[in-house]
């Protein structure tokens, strides 16, 4: 995971609740076995019509949101499927941060693992930030994970909370597996003390 500290850039707003990961990255793209190159498929069915032309009514096609780095959306963002391809696609499209009143559990966890920063704010704060976005000319914002602040174009600042452990991992680009393997002795001791009756290798297959 690459280290991330702060980002300053345009904001895109998709003001809809319960955006599921089937919309973020539709299933027809999940057959790829690569880890990169997912951005072009983001919100495919919402972004493009059947002929592959941009749908003008979809928020991300608003020129004021072009090249945005910060995505704002409604509550329960990322519900449904556990596909990590969803944060891969959001990152691949160019976003560093997603701001919403709440996130689905697995999606939030997947974001943390890949360094896409999920910022949860009370609904009224998200509403105020969304309302401040200029949907004709575009607006910029700064999200600072080190300072735990969001600064709007007008200089107003909102603070946010973030899991301290995960914040440290993202700020320093730490590898989760390396961190866990530091506790190799504890894992081995657990396995010794808790022998299992499960052995998939003993099954005929």
């Amino acid at each position: 995971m690459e280290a991330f500290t702060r980002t300053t850039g345009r904001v895109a707003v998709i003001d809809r609740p319960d955006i599921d990961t089937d919309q973020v990255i539709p299933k027809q793209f999940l057959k790829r076995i690569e880890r990169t190159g997912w951005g072009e498929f983001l919100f495919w069915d919402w972004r493009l019509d059947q002929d592959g032309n941009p749908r003008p009514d979809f928020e991300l096609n608003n020129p004021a949101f072009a090249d945005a780095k910060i995505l704002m959306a409604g509550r329960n963002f990322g519900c449904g499927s556990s596909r990590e391809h969803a944060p891969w696609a959001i990152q691949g499209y160019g976003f560093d941060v997603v701001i919403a009143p709440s996130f689905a559990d697995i999606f939030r966890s997947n974001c943390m693992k890949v360094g896409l920063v999920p910022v949860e704010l009370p609904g009224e704060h998200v509403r105020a930030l969304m309302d401040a976005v200029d949907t004709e000319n575009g607006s910029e914002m700064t999200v600072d994970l080190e300072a735990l602040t969001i600064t709007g174009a007008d200089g107003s600042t909102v603070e946010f909370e973030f899991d301290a452990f995960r914040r440290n991992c993202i700020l320093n680009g730490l590898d989760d597996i390396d961190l866990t393997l530091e506790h190799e002795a504890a894992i081995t001791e657990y396995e010794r003390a808790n022998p299992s009756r499960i052995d998939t290798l003993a099954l005929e297959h």
Partner: protein
Amino acid sequence: MAKTLFDRVWERHVVREEPGEPALIYIDLHLLHEVTSPQAYEGLRLAGRKLRRPDRSIATMDHNVPTDGGPVTDPLAKAQLDALAANCPAFGVPLYATGSGREGIVHVIGPELGLTRPGITIVCGDSHTSTHGAFGALAFGIGTSEVEHVMATQCLQQRRPKTMRMHFEGTLPPGITAKDCILGAIGQIGVAGGAGHVIEYTGDAIEAFTMEQRMTVCNMSIEAGARAGMIAPDNTTFAYLENRPASPQGAEWEAALDEWRQLRTDDGAEFANEVVVNVDDLVPQVTWGTNPGMVAPVTANVPDPADITDDEERQSLERALEYMGLEAGMAVRDIQIDRVFIGSCTNSRIEDLRAAASVVKGHKVSDGVHAMVVPGSVPIKLQAESEGLDKLFTDAGFEWREAGCSMCLGMNPDILQPGERSASTSNRNFEGRQGRGGRTHLVSPEMAAAAAVAGHFVDVRELSYEPVG
């Protein structure tokens, strides 16, 4: 201190816990399939790491496989299946590949083999891993980075989730299924109602359910936003597991039973949240919208946005009705369908197929409706055939297919065309879930079968039919 079932399973699996850090918990069983594993295997390879416990891992092919018995013609799907077929032996993981005779939907074969069992932790790169909680296991879906983490360490870093008890109060009326219970519950608490929680399902209705019905309930915990769903193991659980291929035998079985009987919630144990769902007056459920919480009794009407005062809720409703091509206020029974799908990790087990077959026996699929049955695994398919269920379905005009995930998510060729409308026994009615532009209505197997015959939704309680199988 009084403990919940979840507390017991969680605490038994903590490898390490430090203030301010997520706990490191041990994973007893890791289920793998072709879609969410290739990048994880590649990650191991790039880092030069081994897969720590192949003996706690098992893989199958389910999401991409065609169900018409033909070869995989989609080159991307084939590459993904080939990657699994190469990766599993390279890392020592047993694989039930297509043609092995044991393959099927990952959440169907785990219990079927007896690998799913009380008190263990189970993960899989698939959100419907919650299914396995029906056995009193702590089972949840993870993303591909976590799949790689489990491969390398057999552990996960997890914050302890909160607990919720969902108590089904009352007596289930005749003709009402486990699917109706969980759809009704999601309608009540909403698609984010369980977020951050592990739900324990309790009540007379749950205790009376078979294991397959309990799996249907736990399967859809994720559709309420929950991390997992659990049901305390009891004699129904033990009877299901006895003599499964992977189940303990002899003295080990007796020892396991002694252990499993301890896995319950103490009187007075506290849950962070308590929800009561009254089932006395439950009616067969049909989703009308674009998430599983948008659900109504079959006897009701599609909601009217004009009746909703909350702006956000009204806009959601308007968007859903537009996508679904439904008129506000129309009777659910007047919704005409084009396709019927009986299958998925929610409802593709033998009891589901028997229930659907009972309803279609002696009837014909309505003109213009295309209906298919996709068993959850090869053993289920063979069992159904030995009972003659396949004949009942094909005589009625259903297609009888090979095992797989199929049209639940349409990663294989089984998809809805734009504008087509399905009655589906699966778990998600999101936009495009079964095919771009497709419109999905979630129902029980009985309701799907009845809709296939009528061509529109009907109240299955008004039909007379005898159980088969």
